[in-house]
């Protein structure tokens, strides 16, 4: 935390309105700040005892704006994003990126047109990486179509869910791929130019040094810095730190993010991955995790929150589903063997750590619930912050059990927007697909929850996530399961105070009252006046991070 310098002056930010997200005083007109922390929230009149006794200045930059607590996304992946952000975006939905607005590419014709356009625009020796292909919208793409776009520039068209890409002939030549081995590989289709699943492992043998090269990775992280600020976020949770090499990630993040002009902090959840280990190695993992906060810098912080993984990814359709399973008979995957899942969770639970679990399908959630039921019976804990992350497909009765166990949730609500129609048609059928990310039930059951972007799975724009959560409108314009919509207030809490709660930081951030960090998101309009329909359209002026203003450059 900031070192106390009592001699420095108080700065008072006045605004058209201050939305505190505190029940005791929901609305105010001014926030007094000293040394990066809030001294008092109220009106210039109620602050008189402070202002009369201390040197101060009034800053009315926000006289026409609304001050809210700095937005918080408790679950995204800066390192994954750093690999992706240098690529071109060609998904079926719009992206507002700090350096450009990218329109949706919704058909095969549009995708090929966009690729042609990008090919014309790029420097001659630069390979073209385009991320966002999905057969549901774009149909199948193959090597020959890409050869038509360029015979000399390597082109890689990466699937929206990451598990597949398509290349042209120039790609093979660029990386001098062993074509005999590629032909033998069952998950490389040389003729189609497709590398999928384990075929990606094969491709990374050639591509890894380029994609993960330090310079490119740092340029990607720097873009990530802009993205986070652009969304109005002042705190984020890195929900699986250490998955790409712990020390390497730490070094790059430290160099790129820990700078005076970075207007946010990152709290890391360490990936507690030990799927093939045993009790002794679990113990040394716990010891390692407990020592990590010694490394903390001003903006980069480890804590006692850890991340586990139950079933497979939702975009990749690898969630574990109970009866009746996947529409096309495919199967989900486990990221941790269920028997090991319980053992690892027990080691973490008994060490008093706060466990966050990636779980996406109702059978995955069932495993997590049964595990938590056992742990609560063995060694009951209160205020344990056990968090269900993503919460893609759940059954209503699972919400009641989650509530009874004192668990909370951090929900990937963008699934509803981007996937609910496609999954209804191709993956789940309508009933389950319409009830993806069951937030209304969580609100009714009194469970505290946040919404997150899981960036780059969804845009890192908290107001957009709040909009999806409160409206459940998908990319086709349909309202999916209106009874699972949440109230405006619940949606705003899910990106402020309740997101802080999920990270265990509710005493420092997430709302505006004395003693908390002076982190604000500055909006052109009050979301409570705008109403749920317009949440995603509210312009963001910028943020205040620990008392310092950071406007978004337009």
């Amino acid at each position, binding site marked *: 935390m900031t070192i106390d310098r009592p001699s420095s002056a108080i700065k008072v930010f006045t605004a058209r309105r201050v939305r505190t997200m505190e029940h005791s005083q929901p609305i105010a007109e001014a926030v007094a700040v000293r040394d990066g922390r809030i001294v008092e929230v109220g009106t210039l009149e109620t602050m008189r005892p402070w202002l009369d006794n201390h040197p101060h200045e009034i800053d009315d930059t926000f006289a026409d704006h609304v001050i809210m607590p700095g937005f918080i996304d408790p679950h995204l992946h800066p390192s994954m994003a750093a690999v992706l952000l240098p690529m071109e975006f060609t998904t079926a939905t719009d992206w507002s990126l700090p350096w450009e607005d990218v329109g949706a590419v919704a058909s095969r014709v549009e995708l090929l047109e966009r690729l042609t356009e990008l090919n014309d625009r790029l420097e001659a020796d630069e390979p073209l990486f385009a991320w966002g292909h999905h057969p549901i919208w774009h149909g199948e793409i193959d090597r020959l179509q890409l050869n038509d776009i360029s015979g000399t520039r390597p082109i890689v068209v990466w699937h929206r869910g990451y598990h597949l890409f398509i290349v042209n002939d120039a790609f093979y030549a660029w990386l001098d791929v*062993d074509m*005999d*081995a*590629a032909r*033998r*590989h*069952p*998950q*490389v289709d040389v003729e189609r130019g497709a590398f999928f*699943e*384990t*075929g990606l*492992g*094969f491709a*990374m*043998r050639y591509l890894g040094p380029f994609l993960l090269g330090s310079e490119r990775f740092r340029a990607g992280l720097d873009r990530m810095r802009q993205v986070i600020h652009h969304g109005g976020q002042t705190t984020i949770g890195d929900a699986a730190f250490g998955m790409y*090499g712990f020390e390497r990630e730490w070094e790059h993040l430290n160099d790129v993010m820990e700078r005076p002009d970075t207007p946010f902090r990152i709290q890391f959840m360490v990936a507690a991955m*030990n*799927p*093939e*280990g*045993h009790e*002794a*190695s679990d113990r040394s993992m716990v010891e390692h995790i407990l020592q990590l906060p010694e490394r903390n810098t001003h903006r980069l912080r480890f804590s006692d929150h850890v991340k586990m993984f139950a079933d497979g990814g939702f975009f990749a359709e690898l969630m*574990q589903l*109970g009866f009746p399973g996947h529409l096309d008979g495919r*199967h989900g*995957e*486990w*990221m*941790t*063997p*269920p*028997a*090991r899942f319980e053992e690892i969770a027990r080691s973490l639970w008994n060490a008093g750590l706060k466990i966050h679990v990636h779980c996406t399908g109702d*059978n995955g959630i*069932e*495993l997590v619930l049964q595990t938590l039921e056992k742990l609560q019976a063995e060694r009951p804990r209160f205020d344990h912050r056990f968090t269900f992350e993503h919460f893609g497909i759940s059954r209503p009765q699972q919400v009641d059990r989650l509530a009874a166990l004192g668990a909370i949730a951090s929900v990937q609500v963008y699934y509803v927007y981007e996937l609910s129609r496609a999954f209804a048609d191709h993956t789940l059928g309508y009933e389950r697909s319409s009830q993806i990310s069951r937030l209304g039930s969580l609100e009714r059951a009194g469970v505290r929850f946040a919404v997150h972007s899981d960036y780059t799975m969804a845009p890192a724009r908290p107001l957009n996530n709040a909009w999806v959560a409160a409206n459940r409108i998908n990319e086709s314009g349909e309202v999916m399961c209106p009874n699972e919509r949440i109230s405006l207030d619940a949606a705003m809490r899910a990106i402020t105070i309740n997101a802080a709660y999920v990270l265990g930081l509710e005493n420092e951030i997430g709302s505006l009252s004395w003693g908390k960090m002076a982190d604000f998101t500055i909006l052109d309009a009050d979301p409570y006046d705008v109403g749920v329909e317009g949440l995603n359209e509210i312009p963001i002026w910028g943020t205040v991070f620990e008392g310092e203003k950071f406007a978004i450059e337009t």
Partner: protein
Amino acid sequence: MSERRVPVTVIGGYLGAGKTTLINQLLAGRHGRRLAILVNDFGSVNIDAGLIASHDGETISLENGCICCSLADSLGDALDAVLALDPAPDQIVIEASGVADPAKVAYYGQGWPGCRLDAVVVLADAEMIRGLSDDQFVGELVTRQLRSGDVVALTKTDLVPDSSLDELEAWINTMDETSGTVVRVAHGLVDHRVVLDSAGDVANFGSTGESVDAHELFESVVFEFSSAVEREWLESALESWSDQIVRVKGIIALVDEGRHLVHRVAKRWSIEPTSDNCHANSLVVVALSGATELSQIAADVKRVNLLKD
């Protein structure tokens, strides 16, 4: 393709199936081969300190020439690391994770530069496997694992009555037509011929038709050919032999095509050209003990040789 590709064996199966026991046995074993064994976690591998020649981060080298590498990073990186060893290992063994589909791990063996897939061996605990196959969380997974084995090794069979083993074997065989040969393992001892490509040390075996090794579970027979063999005959033989024939390996001269390496594990086989100069023209066949098919094969080979002579 004259470049020698290193055979890769994948060992799969759910937690508790006995993968680590098998790996310990291979590391310490007297199979005479320099193995590179890629494991998920060193902690559970029990290597006698007296056998360790050196220990360097992710790699342990043993006095017998074998090495054991932890899959701390990617499988591809580990494969490249052991393929770069000089001399290259005779064989690579990959321990698939308990939740992996061994068939997918096997794709690395099939398609990685410098590798050739030898076998997918899936272990199953004879006491637990039926129960696991009905489990709410892992039932689908363990069933899929069983289906992807060229060889399914039932472990801990000493704890289960023979009648149950027969039932179990029948159940695995009915799972689908691609399920592999089922072998039984008692007291944790897997015959290394099931796992390793060692049947192919052709020169070490005796003369035609002679059973070189009487064993409780397997017998190996060498069949020699007096002259070049028709490809058509060889292919139809490899295709038609049942899964009682666990392994086949040899170097065969094909009519008009020259010398070829022949591999067969359970029902999967390959014939590849080789520049190997050895003069052998023979197949080593490892079969389940008492397989009546061996005499039929002997008769077929005899007929081929007579036709040529």
